[in-house]
């Protein structure tokens, strides 16, 4: 797949105002090895913010984000406030599946999947066809997103993120709108894909069944609480509210 196996290391802090009076601080420190790490916690605990910081869509106030080499050294920094490193989302080469999917409404399913592939030509077409078959959406290739089912849209969004061969995959509650049967079917196909592409996957969810079905390890996030479950040290995630905030 062209990816070397490496872990994603995240140490970030980001404060923002939820309302005029309420300040909220997200603090996260964890290492996500290849495999699925679930960031589990209630709505509003800062899960999405962590993913946005990693993807480069939001900027942490402080910290570092990078990939660890075999020796455990940080080899590839995406963000480091001290060294003024802040790669653009384009340079980070991470796959991101949004909760709202964000499929391009004016393109067909196949065009959506092909969107992130730089090169043109026969290679691109075969890549797209291959991944659409794997995710069982080849039959809707020429349809626009508003003409296909919710489960198919979900699969298109996954295929679109994976076809670019990202170095890590960020999933922001992508299955929350689906019923359990559909969800488990998609999760099975995703797992199948992940056996080939050994990359760190961060799955954000507040759904326990989703967390247990897909997760290899679980990182708990809750405002103000440092908690971890089944962690491989030094894995933990905290979402902390500073003292004095409302």
């Amino acid at each position, binding site marked *: 797949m062209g990816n070397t196996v490496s872990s994603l290391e995240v140490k970030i802090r980001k404060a923002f105002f939820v309302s005029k009076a309420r300040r909220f601080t997200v603090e996260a420190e964890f290492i996500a090895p290849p495999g699925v790490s679930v960031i589990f916690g209630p709505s509003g605990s800062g899960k999405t913010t962590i993913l946005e910081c990693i993807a480069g869509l939001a900027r942490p106030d402080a910290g570092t984000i990078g990939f660890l080499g075999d020796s455990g050294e940080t080899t590839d920094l995406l963000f480091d406030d001290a060294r003024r490193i802040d790669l653009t*989302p*384009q340079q980070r080469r991470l*796959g991101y599946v949004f909760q709202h999917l964000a499929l*391009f*409404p004016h393109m067909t399913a196949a065009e959506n999947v092909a969107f992130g592939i730089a090169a043109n030509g026969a290679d691109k077409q075969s890549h797209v066809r291959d991944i659409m078959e794997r995710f069982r959406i080849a039959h809707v290739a020429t349809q626009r997103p508003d003409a296909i089912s919710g489960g198919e849209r979900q699969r298109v969004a996954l295929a679109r993120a994976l076809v670019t061969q990202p170095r890590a995959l960020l999933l922001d509650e992508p299955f929350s709108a689906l019923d359990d049967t559909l969800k488990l079917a998609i999760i099975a196909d995703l797992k199948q894909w992940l056996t080939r592409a050994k990359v760190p996957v961060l799955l954000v969810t507040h759904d326990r069944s989703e967390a247990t079905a897909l997760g290899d390890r679980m990182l708990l996030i809750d405002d103000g609480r440092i908690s971890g479950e089944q962690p491989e040290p030094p894995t933990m995630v905290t979402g902390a509210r500073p003292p004095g905030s409302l």
Partner: protein
Amino acid sequence: MTAAFRSVDQRLIDAARTLGVGRAAIYRRIVLPLAWPGLITALVLTFAHTVGEFGVVLMVGGNIPGVTRTLSIDIYDQVQMLNYASATQTALVLLIFSFVLLVVVYLLNQRTLLWGTR
């Protein structure tokens, strides 16, 4: 026009960024295609407004045949010369023209709605 650009969902642009696509390409492949019905609407309405312009041109620009004479000023001139037949014809042309433009704008907006659903 600003509204047309604003109507493009920022989340789509973010999605395109995470897929490694640069700013120029995002503009060309996402922003323009999604904003163009609004842009065309803006263009058409501006054009229609100009064709029917009366007061400002008459008072400031002057009434120079072939240079600053808009359709509505032409109608005004015909009426001044008591040439009602010609004035009516021109008015009819203007009426049909504005009706066609309104239909075009309406169809374009429908298309925007279709794309905006998701």
